[in-house]
């Protein structure tokens, strides 16, 4: 069934693009509202060569990366502490889960009020997006460690480093990677939102500006580009997730 | 010998072939037996020999590849819930429904009115001696109790035939023995025809009138043992010489089959 499924998925995507192109050529769609796929591809080509666009894209990527590179390690460390130390875990976990329950985007205005929205502030906004989800998953990862095995290994005289490498790491890896994957997705959402809301540079600003000026072909090109890149990042992380979790009994859900 | 009773279940040269990844697997081969009304027939055999497949065919859940299955002389092609009830190792009680609602569920599907359903459910609960638990949820009951409710649910539509696929397999030994007694008591009272699948030779001989012995895959009937031990039976009967002899006969049939399998190479496992 596998090849048939892939075929159907590819077929679906092509059908959508095909219908879209058909609609545009047949004049069903107003080109000032919905440009044709070919127009979008053309606009995309121009954007990629435009220095201004690349500069904004670079800004966005920098913010996203910086937020992740700073936020993830702190979050992992926090999550491990929460997982190992039951007291800390029990007091902090409810708070973290509460934060995760409400999408953090809502606090953007307060953020802007409190801190303004310079580079640092946007960075912090992104970091908060990364922090909570990675920490909660790191905490859950600690719970995945089979303590029976650890005790057994110690009784054989295995050193701490050895135990960390061969028991802790493989057991925790899948959950940690899941957290990192979600972290980067939330990070991207947070940074782009911050840029759309109050910024002078970055992809978010471009999108909003193009929207307001009805530059639909550029808007669509950039939007689709961002979507595709995000999907690719997600899928890559998923593959990674799968590979570190290969030793586990795969529960076939997705 | 008891006078001849009408045959309710009959299989004639039943066969089932699965094709997995384009390689055919013969699950059942040339299965022929008949079950008289009101009798208790067991099927024993090694793991993977196709016992469950056979039961699913009898229940109308799976179609056969060759041969026939007749219930009351009519071929079985789909489930016939008013005549045949099925029980599995897992009670599969619906967790969001109370016990009474669970027992009533098949009756609801069959279109019985609410008043009739309530009455019938109460009767069944009394039959399995769990009347006080009607308002509880399945997770509040022990494994043995859940299986008793499953029996109550299976008997609620008043079927003629009860098919049971290792219903006590997940229970500990003591509960198993008690459930065996329970089942015999209920059977004596309701006089249903029971087709019972089990791993355990002891359980099969303890419960049944007839024991069908099945080979490893491809499953064939390699022997039929008539169990003439007197009824009503209690568990201490398994100490008797007659019991031991019958069990040895079954064991011989199975080991013979095992040796043939070994000779034929591991590929046939």
């Amino acid at each position, binding site marked *: 069934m596998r090849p*048939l*499924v892939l075929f*159907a*998925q590819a077929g*679906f995507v092509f059908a959508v693009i095909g219908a879209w192109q058909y609609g545009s050529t047949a004049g069903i769609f107003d080109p000032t*509202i919905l440009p044709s796929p070919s127009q979008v591809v053309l606009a995309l080509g121009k954007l990629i060569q435009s220095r201004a666009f690349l500069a904004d894209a670079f800004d966005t990527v920098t913010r996203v990366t910086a937020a992740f590179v700073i936020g993830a390690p702190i979050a992992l460390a926090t999550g491990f502490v929460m997982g190992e130390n039951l007291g800390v875990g029990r007091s902090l976990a409810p708070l973290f889960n509460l934060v995760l329950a*409400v*999408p953090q*985007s*809502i606090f953007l*205005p*307060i953020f*802007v*009020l*409190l801190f303004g929205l310079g580079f640092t502030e946007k960075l912090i906004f992104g970091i908060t997006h990364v922090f909570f989800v990675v920490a909660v998953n790191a905490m859950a990862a600690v719970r995945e460690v089979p303590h029976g095995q650890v005790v057994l290994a110690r009784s054989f005289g295995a050193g701490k480093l050895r135990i960390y490498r061969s028991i802790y790491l493989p057991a925790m890896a899948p959950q940690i990677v899941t957290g990192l994957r979600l972290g980067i*997705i939330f990070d*991207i*959402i947070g940074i*782009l*939102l911050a840029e*759309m*809301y109050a910024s002078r540079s970055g992809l978010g600003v471009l*999108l*909003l500006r*193009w*929207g*307001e000026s*009805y530059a*639909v072909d550029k*808007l*669509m090109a950039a*939007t689709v580009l*961002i*979507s595709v890149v*995000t*999907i690719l*990042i997600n*899928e890559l992380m998923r593959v990674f997730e799968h590979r570190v979790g290969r030793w586990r009994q795969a529960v076939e*859900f*997705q | 010998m008891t006078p001849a009773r009408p045959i309710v279940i009959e299989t004639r040269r039943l066969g089932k072939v699965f094709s997995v990844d384009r390689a055919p697997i013969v699950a059942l081969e040339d299965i022929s037996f008949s079950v008289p009304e009101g009798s208790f027939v067991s099927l024993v055999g090694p793991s993977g020999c196709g016992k469950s497949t056979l039961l699913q065919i009898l*229940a109308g*859940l799976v179609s056969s590849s060759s041969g026939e299955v007749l219930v009351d002389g009519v071929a079985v092609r789909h*489930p*016939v*819930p*008013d005549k045949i*009830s099925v029980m599995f190792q*897992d009670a*599969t009680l*619906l*967790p*969001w*429904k109370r016990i009474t609602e669970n027992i009533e*569920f098949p009756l609801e*599907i*069959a279109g019985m009115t609410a008043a009739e359903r309530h009455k019938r459910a109460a009767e069944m609960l009394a039959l399995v001696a769990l009347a006080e638990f009607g308002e509880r*949820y399945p*997770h*509040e009951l022990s494994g043995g109790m859940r299986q008793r409710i499953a029996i109550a649910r299976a008997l609620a*539509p008043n079927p003629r035939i009860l098919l049971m696929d290792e219903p006590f397999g997940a229970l500990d030994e003591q509960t198993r023995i008690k459930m065996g007694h329970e089942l015999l008591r209920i059977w004596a009272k309701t006089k249903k025809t029971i087709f019972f699948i089990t791993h355990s030779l002891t359980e099969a001989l303890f419960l049944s009138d007839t024991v069908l012995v099945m080979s490893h895959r491809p499953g064939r009937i390699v022997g039929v043992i008539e169990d003439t031990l007197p009824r009503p039976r209690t568990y201490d009967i398994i100490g008797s010489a007659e019991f031991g002899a019958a069990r040895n006969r079954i064991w011989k049939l199975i080991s013979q089959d095992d040796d043939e399998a070994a000779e034929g190479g591991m590929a046939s496992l």
Partner: protein
Amino acid sequence: MRRLLVIVVFLGAWEATRRFDLVGPLLVASPGEIVGALVKSWPDYLGALRFTVTEIAIALAAAWTVGIATGAIAGTIPFLGATSGPLLSSLFAVPLITWYPLFMVWFGIGMTSKIIYAAVSGFFPIAINTMNGIRGTDPRYVTFGRAIGCSHRQVVFRILLPMAMPSIMSGLRIGTALIVIGVIVAEMLASLGGIGYLISYYRSIYATGHVYLGILFALACALAANWGLTLLERRYTRWRELQIAER
């Protein structure tokens, strides 16, 4: 009683930090300022609330129905599930907010664009969770259903959907949160009205008290939706809570 005292002390300290200028007026609003904003502008807030709640309600109705239906269909037909499952999860990763400018072009800056944006946001987790809930059901329950003579429809509605309820509920929770916040965030970016619109407006004129009041209204919406869901959960998945409690 003690809790009430803690809250009163907290509010008092909060008010004090502003009164004594411990923190600047642009950063934090004191409870007094927030109440003042409410007293001054409550008609605006009420109108905005009506606007926002309407959008949320329509988006919820759309996302819940289409989401559960899609998830149910994908969950019960194996081929559809195998095909759409990965597609849905992949699309879920897309930062939907980046599509809002396009929605603005296509649907204007009135209610429609926000409703569609929020509904699409909520659709994905609902559909995915419903599908997984159904696919994750122990197949023995389906066998049981068939053995007692259930039709295909009965198996889906009487066995699979109730069995998948906890999963569906979890999806509804995530989806509803995304919808409520989605509507408000979209209003903050570009809108004709609504709580988010007010928040943005007041922020631009540095009316801190008003901004915090707006955020409180937004949180109230989120909490109300959450509370509604908890009631629903209690009605339909009590058995699950009891089951977990028993362990």
